[in-house]
């Protein structure tokens, strides 16, 4: 098995100490005065002062319901909200009208699945939506390494429409098994992750998009673990839909993004209905606003959108190439050092190639929950469990795993603290060979 050395990043080094100073929470202590070692950014990232300040300033100066009302605050709030959309769209290489704000990425994926579901019910569907109709004989393809959020909506869509769910399996080294390709002429949707939240695996998006396009299937990319950590250009990737969450990219919780190619958003039936998303309403029925408004029913989250705008400004100022290089260095070191410990096995690729900064592992003879308890006693926060990817864990024949995940504020010292903590857990449970 090949172990790749960590990539060196000369010329791209970050002043991590300076970055950490922007994150007040990182300087706190936990569990009787232990410095916090936060290695759970894959679950949720911490937020810099710039994001917190942007939210607070907005709320203290311009707060109002957006896209309704004609008073001064309503105008300012709407401008701030739409300016955030514009910057977020630019951040991922999308046009402004292709960015829909949702509660989180889970809601974004459900929005697509329910839109397709609505296009599949009975007659009288808007002719433009016919292209999304699914029924018996049609197939939806996903992968065995998906987060539950990119699996269950498709299971349910299939159940409701009579379509069949198929999936790519996983190879022993944690890659998608592209040789056993479930994509056929019957495939209507291919939903897959841009980076596994457990394995860190980055599948070959271009290749999967190529295969999906060849049969006329729509692609839905779960970009929750890629957009926060690397430069992503959705137009260049050529996917039809993509979803990501604010809180994993130094932004607030309560906001996520659905990206959809404009032509598709124009044809997709709405998911949630109500205020803001309409064009004309009569007692007998209504017509709907063009996207993105069509998919933003009700008064939307505003300070969260402004906060996410500040988060992409913050990340852009650092440069996503440098964010990626920094995390790559930490990931490479963590992989090497953890694999040096007897009894520790990595789930997923053992080197840093086509791989992001989530490092899941198991320790022989030490249950992940027990390991996490020992780590927590030293102030080290990791995720344990199945990380909302139960089928993936089943595919690897494990019940649960420990996951360390990084962001731009993590340091090499924290990687060393993790490795030392894992050794302590092994010693505590008498598993040091």
């Amino acid at each position, binding site marked *: 098995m090949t172990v790749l050395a960590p990539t060196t990043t000369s010329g791209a080094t970050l002043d991590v100490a300076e970055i950490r100073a922007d994150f007040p929470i990182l300087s706190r202590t936990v569990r009787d005065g232990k410095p916090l070692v936060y290695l759970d950014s894959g679950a949720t990232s911490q937020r810099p002062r710039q994001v917190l300040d942007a939210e607070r300033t907005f709320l203290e100066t311009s707060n109002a319901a957006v896209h309704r009302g004609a008073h001064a605050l309503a105008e300012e709030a709407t401008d701030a909200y739409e300016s955030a959309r514009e910057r977020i769209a630019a951040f991922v290489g999308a046009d402004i009208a292709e960015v829909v704000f949702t509660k989180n990425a889970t809601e974004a994926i459900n929005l697509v699945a329910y839109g397709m579901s609505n296009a599949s019910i009975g007659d009288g569907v808007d002719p433009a939506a016919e292209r999304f109709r699914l029924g018996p004989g049609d197939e939806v393809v996903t992968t065995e390494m998906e987060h539950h959020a990119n699996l269950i909506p498709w299971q349910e869509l299939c159940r409701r429409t009579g379509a069949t769910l198929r999936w790519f399996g996983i190879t022993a080294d944690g890659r998608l098994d592209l040789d056993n390709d479930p994509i056929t002429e019957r495939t209507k949707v291919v939903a897959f992750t841009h980076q596994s939240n457990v394995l860190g695996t980055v599948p070959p998006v271009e290749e999967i998009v190529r295969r999906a396009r060849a049969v006329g299937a729509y692609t839905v990319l779960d970009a929750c673990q890629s957009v926060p950590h690397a430069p992503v250009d959705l137009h260049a990737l050529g996917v039809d839909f993509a979803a990501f969450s604010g809180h994993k990219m130094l932004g607030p919780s309560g906001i996520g993004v659905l990206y959809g190619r404009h032509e598709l958003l124009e044809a997709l039936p709405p998911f949630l209905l109500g205020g803001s998303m309409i064009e004309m309403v009569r007692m007998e029925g209504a017509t709907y606003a063009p996207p993105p408004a069509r998919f933003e029913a009700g008064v939307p989250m505003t300070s969260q959108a402004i906060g996410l705008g500040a988060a992409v400004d913050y990340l852009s100022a650092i440069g996503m190439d440098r964010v990626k290089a920094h995390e790559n260095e930490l990931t490479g070191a963590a992989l090497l050092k953890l694999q040096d410990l007897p009894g520790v096995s990595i789930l997923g690729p053992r080197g840093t190639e086509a791989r992001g900064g989530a490092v899941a592992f198991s320790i022989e003879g030490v249950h*992940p929950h027990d390991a996490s308890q020992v780590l927590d006693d030293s102030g080290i926060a990791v995720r344990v469990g199945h990380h909302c990817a139960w089928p993936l864990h089943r595919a690897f024949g494990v019940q649960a795993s420990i996951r360390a995940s990084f962001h731009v504020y993590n340091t090499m010292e924290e990687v060393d603290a993790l490795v030392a903590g894992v050794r302590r857990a092994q010693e505590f449970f008498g598993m040091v060979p």
Partner: protein
Amino acid sequence: MYQEIILDHYRRPHGHGLREPFEAEVHHVNPTCGDEVTVRVHLSGGEGLDAKVEDLSYDALGCSISQAATSVAHDLLVGHTVGEAFETLDAYQAMVQGRGKVEPDEDVLDDAVAFAGVAAYPARVKCALLGWLAFKDAVAQAQAGGTP
């Protein structure tokens, strides 16, 4: 939290394995971590709370806390009436859910007092309760007609 008693039960669980006869078998899962336990109960004599717990047999996959807690449940509950077993269970549940504010009664809880430390870690309370609540469910099912 990891008292020696807990680690002993984890390494050498008491009463482990699924046995016959039994009137009910239940399978409980902790959805946050995937820990699983299958519990069988064998009851005899009496009705309701007067029935006697003849056996609690189990098969468990999980962390030290959930495994050890099920082992201790076997020790403390078997040989008692359902009424007594439920009293012990209630005291145990009150202790581990008590956020450290419930003083455990060592006369009732015996080895199970070792789990008092779990109360300080809310994320682990489910682990400590998994096998115990499976037992409660199995008794309810056995007395409602069983699921053999």
